[in-house]
Structures are given as C-alpha cells and as structure tokens.
C-alpha cells in the first residue's frame, strides 16, 4: 500500500509531528479532521451518558444504603411499598422508553438491582434466616429472564457476579468441612459463562461487540484457574482426599487456558486476552519451579529472578509478533 493511502491514525499523525512535518496547530487540526478529537455532538452525547450513568449509580447506591440502615421506625409495609414502587417505577420507565435506548437499558439494570434490595428487605423483615448464597441465587434466578431477553451486557455481568457470589458462599455454608472446591467450581462456572458469551458473540450481536465483558469473564476464569493450579502445586499434585482425582481439575484448567490462548490469538484475535493468559502462565511456571528447587538455597533467588525475566522476554516477543500479525493499533 502507498504510504499516503494508509489510514490517518493518531499514532501516524503524532509521528509526523515528532518528525517536524506538522506544527502543533496543524497536528491539532489534522487530529480533528481525522476524527480523533470529539466534535460538539460527541461532547453533548458524552455529557448525557456520563450524567445518566453517574446519576443512576448514585440513586441506586442511595436506595441500598437506605434499606441497609434498617430504619426501625419505618413500618415493614412502608418498606415493602417503597422498594416495590422504586422497582416498578424503574421497570415501567424501561418499558416506556424502550430497550433500544440507553436510559431504558439503565432503568432495566436498576430494576434488576432493586430485586436484590427487595429480597434483602424480605429477609430483614421476616428474619428468614436465609444464607447469603440463597439470596444471591434467588436474585440471579429472578433476573434470569430479563437478562436473557434484554441484550444488555452490564446486566449479564451482574448476573455473572451474582452466580459467582452464590457459588462462593455455598461452599462455605453448605459443605464447610469438605475440601475447598471453590477454585474448581468457580473456574468451571466462569469458563462456562465465557464459552456461552463467545459462542453468542460470534453471531455478531451488536450489543456484545465491546470486548470488555468477555475480557472480564476471562479474567475471572483465569484467576480461579490460576488459584486451582497453585493449589495443586502447593499440595505437590498429591491427592489428599483418597478417592477424588483432584489433579484432573488443574489439568483441565491448563488445557482450557491453552485453548483460550489459541482462540484469542488465531480465531477471534484480541491481544489483551493472551497477554493476561501469558501472565498467568508465568506465575504458574515460576511457582512450580520454585516448589521443585525450594527457597532454602541462596541461588534459588538468582535463578528464579532470571527465570522470570526470561519468561517475560519470550512472552513479550510472542505477543509483539502477534500484535503485528493482528494489526493491533499499538
């Protein structure tokens, strides 16, 4: 391609300015013409979105604080009336405005969040003695239908967080004396959610296009996968529970991590994802080798320091090559 037929990216324009070919005012005009600086229309939209999100977040936080205070002078029916009016108002506003508008989507998210407040007030008033995991599980169940229908990515994230919290507390409250299965269970949950997300996303749904939601699920899965493997390394891959083949889960996590890296490098290129997986791999390899050589030798520190540097060098080399191949705007 002719150099002048390349896209006028911000990096290229800055490169020209650094080479003295564009003066600072010319650079500013060039950035504006190429669409890298916001227009008055973009400013107006930004102000509208920022004020809407901040306002809704503060109102929602206020409602949760109000019911967390557990105002004794307020009759229980008044509490229920207040929360249900707020919930119905948010849901009604969402229906009125429609889910193709941002304020409608924000109102629907608020309504789904208020379902949690309603459940909490119910538990508070009737002292149901429900465990934390049931609260989060019921909450997730009640918002499952709107989550499936609304095409609202933040709502999916709320749903995922509630399932994570429910599973996290379930182990503590249901099978507290058993071996800690949380890393395996939470890894499986988040890997499953990520798989579903990526499968649906591959159908080019516009609302799923921003990459941050998939990355958030990948980060959760990678975190619990790494914890799972560090657990196995710490126990020297020995099955402590006799019959349970504990080592299978870490190996599955390792294999899925490799598949995910391949997917994000080749099939659905997204460089931050393999970068995160590379970081996890470095932590796991270093932990395994440090466990093998031990920490009682002075030279272990030197060896591990050099090992970390070597791994980062290899990872950076591979990632930068991938970046060039993907044409990532660096």
């Amino acid at each position: 391609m002719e150099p002048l037929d390349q896209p006028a990216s911000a990096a290229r324009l800055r490169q020209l300015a650094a080479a003295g070919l564009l003066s600072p005012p010319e650079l500013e005009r060039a950035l504006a013409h190429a669409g890298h600086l916001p227009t008055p229309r973009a400013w107006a939209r930004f102000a509208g979105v920022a004020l809407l999100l901040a306002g809704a977040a503060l109102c929602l936080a206020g409602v949760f604080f109000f019911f967390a205070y557990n105002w004794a002078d307020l009759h229980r029916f008044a509490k229920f009336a207040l929360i249900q009016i707020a919930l119905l108002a948010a849901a009604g506003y969402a229906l009125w405005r429609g889910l193709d508008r941002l304020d409608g989507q924000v109102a629907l998210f608020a309504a789904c969040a208020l379902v949690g407040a309603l459940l909490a007030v119910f538990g508070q008033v009737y002292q149901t003695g429900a465990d934390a995991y049931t609260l989060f599980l019921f909450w997730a169940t009640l918002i499952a239908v709107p989550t499936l229908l609304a095409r609202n990515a933040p709502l999916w994230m709320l749903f995922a967080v509630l399932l994570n919290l429910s599973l996290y507390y379930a182990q503590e409250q249901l099978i507290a004396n058993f071996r800690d299965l949380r890393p395996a269970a939470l890894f499986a949950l988040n890997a499953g959610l990520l798989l579903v997300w990526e499968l649906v996303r591959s159908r080019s749904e516009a609302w799923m296009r921003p990459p941050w939601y998939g990355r958030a699920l990948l980060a959760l899965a990678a975190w619990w996968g790494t914890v799972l493997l560090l657990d196995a390394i710490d126990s020297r891959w020995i099955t402590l529970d006799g019959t349970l083949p504990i080592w299978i889960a870490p190996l599955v996590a390792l294999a899925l991590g490799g598949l995910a890296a391949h997917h994000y490098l080749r099939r659905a290129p997204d460089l931050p994802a393999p970068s995160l997986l590379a970081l996890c791999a470095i932590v796991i390899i270093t932990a395994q080798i440090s466990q093998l050589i031990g920490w009682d030798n002075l030279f272990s520190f030197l060896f591990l320091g050099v090992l970390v540097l070597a791994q980062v060098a290899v990872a950076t080399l591979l990632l930068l090559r991938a970046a060039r191949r993907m044409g990532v705007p660096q």
Partner: protein
Amino acid sequence: MITMRELLAQLHAETPLAPDLPERVGQALAASVPATTPWYIHGLVAFGASIAALLLLVFTGMTGAITSGAGAITVGGTLIVAAIALRFMVRSVSWLAQLPLAFSMVGALMVFGGALLIDGSFDSTLGLSRALLALALVELLLILFYPDQLRRLLSTLLLALIICWLLLSNELPLAAALFVAALGWGVALLWLHEPLLNRRADILRPVAYGLVFGLFACLVALLFGPPTPRWPLSLTLAAALAYAAWSLLPYAALQTRLLALLGVLLLLLPAWETPGMLAAALVLLLGFSRGNRILVGLGGLFLAGFIGFFYYSLAATLLVKSFALVGAGLLLLAARAVVLRASARAGLL
C-alpha cells in the same frame, strides 16, 4: 478512517500547505512505522521486572557482599549506569526491555537503602529524607537518560510520590497539599497542550502519563497518610478543572461555559474534603477531549473510587448517606435533562 492523502487535501483546502509536504509525509511514513507497545504488554513487562528485581535484590542482600551503605550506593549506581547502557544497546528490541528495567529497579532500591543506612541513623527523619532525596535524584536521572517510555512513566510516578512522602515525613502537610495541587495543574496544562508534547515525545509523553498516575497516587497517599489541610488542594484543583472546562469550550455559547463552571462549583461541595474527585473529573475531561481512552478509563475508575471513599468516610448514619446519595443522583439526572434540552436546541442531538 480517512487516508493520509485525503487528510492532507482537506488541510490544504483550509490553509495552503507547503507544496512538497505530501511527498515528505510519504517518505516519512515509508521510512518507519510508528512502533510502540500496547499498555497491557507494558504492564506485563513492569510486573515481570518488579518481581525479578525483588528476587535479585534478596539474592544480593543474602550474599553478604555488601556490608555498608556506601557500598550499596556504589553498587546501585553502577547497576543504574549499566542499565542505561544496556537499554541503549537493546533500544530497538522491545522484548528485552525488562532486563535493564529490572537492573535499574535494583539499582534505585540499593541507592535508597544505602543512603538510609549510611550513618546508621536508620530511623531518623534526616536519614529518611536523605534516602528519599537520593532516590528522587536517581529517578530524575532515569527520566532524562534512560531511553524507555515505561521506565520514564514509572520514574515520574515515583518522583511525585517521593516528593509527597518527603514533605509529609518532614511535617510539611500544607506544602504536600500544594505540591499535589501543582501536579494537578501540571496534568491540566500538559494535556490541554498535548500537541506540544510531540516536540520531545520520547520524554514528554511518558512524563505526562506518569504525572497522571503520580497525581492519583499522591491523592490516595494523602487520604491515608497524616492529616493534611484538604481545602487548599480542593480549591486549586477546582480552579484547574474550571480552567480546563473553560479552555475546552472556546466556541460554545457563554451559557454553556457558565453551566460548566457551575458544575465545577457544585462538585466542589462534596469534594471539599475529598479532592480526588476533582482530580479524577479533570483527568476524565482531559481524556475525552483528547480522544484518549486510557485517560478516560483512569479518570472514570478513580472518580468512582473517590466518590465511594467520600460516602464511606462521611461521618453520618447510613440513612443520612442514603438521602445524600439519592439527592446527588437526582441532581445529576436533572442536570442531564438540562444538557439534553440545550443540546437538542443547538441541533447537536
């Protein structure tokens, strides 16, 4: 996105450019491709280098080869010089950046430790001040001479934190607050005049990013450090935010500009004791105005954090806090309605 050829034609139609400019631009673009590293790979490199530096530091300490403060300073200084030389040697090899980076980190920490121990006054304020000054000098030298954007960013961040710590440890809280306010103004002026950064982009761009990180790090340090007067900081940061908002709306109607100033004044009320909110709003505003998603993300993240801290630390019951939150939320939603109406009237929506 339009092509370079179309862009040059548009610029030429506005103001005639030098006739040979397209040719020179073509040559410059053909000669080299802008090659920088994405921020998350920088993060990976910084993480790896920090862990390696700690391990190498422990190794050096455990060998027992360094027995005095002067010895540590000498070895640390040598390591820094070696790191600078090594980085020059592998300047075009991005994937080797973490090796000299780790050396420079070990060197800086050894200089700090050496200066702290030089006369055995480990726990005195004088000893700590001397060590912090030595570290500040090292970081300043690294900004000037270490040819790497990541290291320059980290050094700027550390330099800001060191100066703040130095002032706080010498019981100069007002000076610390004013220093952080100056950082805020520095951030505002640098990013408002971003095109000027390209004159020495290799140094000034990482320094500009480092100042943003340094500003937030110092504000967090002030929140959790010894008591400092917050109002001078809040007032100065509000002035910086007002200046930025005014500068960014040069062609807007006077009513819009005054509305922006009113917004800053309103934000000053809750931010009186939590100045971080003003700094975060400033970075968010500057980031959006420059089309810079990193700054927008940082500003948004810290704004949410500082608002959370404000309500958490408010000496009031949950009930009062809830009314304050809902009130503030409704105010913002009302402000949105005003903005949308004004924008629609101006034909912007």
